[in-house]
């Protein structure tokens, strides 16, 4: 007998009061138990033990089935839409292209790009962190990595946001604007695959195209991989950047400590990532009957791994719901875990660090615009702020 049978609850993720306060939202989710079935049939895994069990058994908790069922995209999103053992071939190649050493080599360029975006509003006395920085910078970084022109940034942002806005509302039918955006993005990527096959550069796309023999990737594999980066690697960083800057804006003491002692930045980033995970859940589908924390989940079930609640496991952190640099680096799950651990984690952390460092060089003092309440969009596949207006003193007009 595989664990106890349980009945579905009345839980709906959309009911979680997540918008104003993630603490209230994640507590609502956890209050139903560590493993339970939502009203829509999805099994929710909320404890760290349950989430870790799932990510460490990818043959039972299939990312491929969950991704292909939910994406509505006609090609496999590589590598999340691939299970072991095939997954390993892709990941071996991609890990080395997104390793810290590679990011290190790009740092000067990425830092300059962050500085330029911030310098554009530094003497205006106000900005919208989301609109002027967090929505733009991750896309520039993507374009830089893939060897595409930065001039295409706004076009790319538009396509991706149109697709994501619709994919996360849960409506089955994509409207014409979504189809148009997806078609535009596919065409754009295909154009660069063709171009770089002719004239390779020093970028991820060219390196993937250079793989030969049994290791070579088809156009479909290349497209799926590039597409995944745009739908998983941009709005998540936008979300994380918004929450990080929001926390620093609302906590001037912490911000001043950080400016005085830059070694605090890593811990602050880790703690905000832990408490404010842009992807609150990730999806899997069971390939067989399985018992998780004493509860039986049947084969073929949709499962949501709740990273946000696992990150706030009582007992593991002294202050589970607070950003506290004294308890940083105790192994949060914001980047997932197991074989599908976020490939862009090293890059995302670097983007967050560069943005804060460069922001504080030009704008050390700032606060949320009076009267504005920075709430998160909910329900949403990616937790994020739509806007974060800040006001700040302007220097003497120099620089």
């Amino acid at each position: 007998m595989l664990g106890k049978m349980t009945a579905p609850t009345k839980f709906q993720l959309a009911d979680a009061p997540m918008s104003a306060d993630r603490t209230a939202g994640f507590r609502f989710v956890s209050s139903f138990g560590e493993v339970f079935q939502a009203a829509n049939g999805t099994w929710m895994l909320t404890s760290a033990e349950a989430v870790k069990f799932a990510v460490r058994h990818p043959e039972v908790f299939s990312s491929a089935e969950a991704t292909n069922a939910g994406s509505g995209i006609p090609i496999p999103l590589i590598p999340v839409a691939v299970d072991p053992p095939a997954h390993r071939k892709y990941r071996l190649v991609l890990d080395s292209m997104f390793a810290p050493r590679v990011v290190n080599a790009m740092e000067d360029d990425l830092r300059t790009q962050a500085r330029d975006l911030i310098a554009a509003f530094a003497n205006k006395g106000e900005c919208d962190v989301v609109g002027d920085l967090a929505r733009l910078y991750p896309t520039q970084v993507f374009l830089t990595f893939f060897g595409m022109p930065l001039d295409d940034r706004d076009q790319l942002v538009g396509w991706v946001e149109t697709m994501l806005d619709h994919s996360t509302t849960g409506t089955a039918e994509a409207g014409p604007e979504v189809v148009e955006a997806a078609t535009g993005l596919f065409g754009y990527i295909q154009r660069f695959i063709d171009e770089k096959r002719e004239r390779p550069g020093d970028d991820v796309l060219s390196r993937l195209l250079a793989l030969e023999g049994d290791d070579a990737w088809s156009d479909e594999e290349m497209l799926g991989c590039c597409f995944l980066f745009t739908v998983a690697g941009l709005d998540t960083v936008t979300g994380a950047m918004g929450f990080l800057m929001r926390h620093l804006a609302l906590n001037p003491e912490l911000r001043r400590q950080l400016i005085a002692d830059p070694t605090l930045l890593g811990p602050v980033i880790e703690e905000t990532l832990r408490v404010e995970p842009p992807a609150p859940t990730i999806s899997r589908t069971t390939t067989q009957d399985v018992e998780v924390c004493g509860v039986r989940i049947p084969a073929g079930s949709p499962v949501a791994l709740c990273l946000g609640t696992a990150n706030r496991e009582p007992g593991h952190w002294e202050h589970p719901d607070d950003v506290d640099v004294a308890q940083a680096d105790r192994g949060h799950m914001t980047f997932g875990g197991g074989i599908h651990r976020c490939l862009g984690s090293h890059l995302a952390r670097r983007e967050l660090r560069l943005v804060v460092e460069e922001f504080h060089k030009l704008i050390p003092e700032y606060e949320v615009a009076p009267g504005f309440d920075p709430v998160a969009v909910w329900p949403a596949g990616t937790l994020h702020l739509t806007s974060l207006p800040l006001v700040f003193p302007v220097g003497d007009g120099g620089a």
Partner: protein
Amino acid sequence: MRVVIDYERCTGNGRCYALFPDLFGDDESGYGQVIGDGSIGDDQLDEARSAVVACPEDAVAIEGE
């Protein structure tokens, strides 16, 4: 006493070498590697214990403690 990485679990999160560069280095794919044979002295034990806690995959362990 030495620190070890279980490569059945390590997925290249990179927390070990980011936080404890005296004990761990990185390879070309971003996976952690113990420095030398991983031997540590008593004075490095606290650091090693913090590395065990920091790994989100529970892949770091101390042998012979």
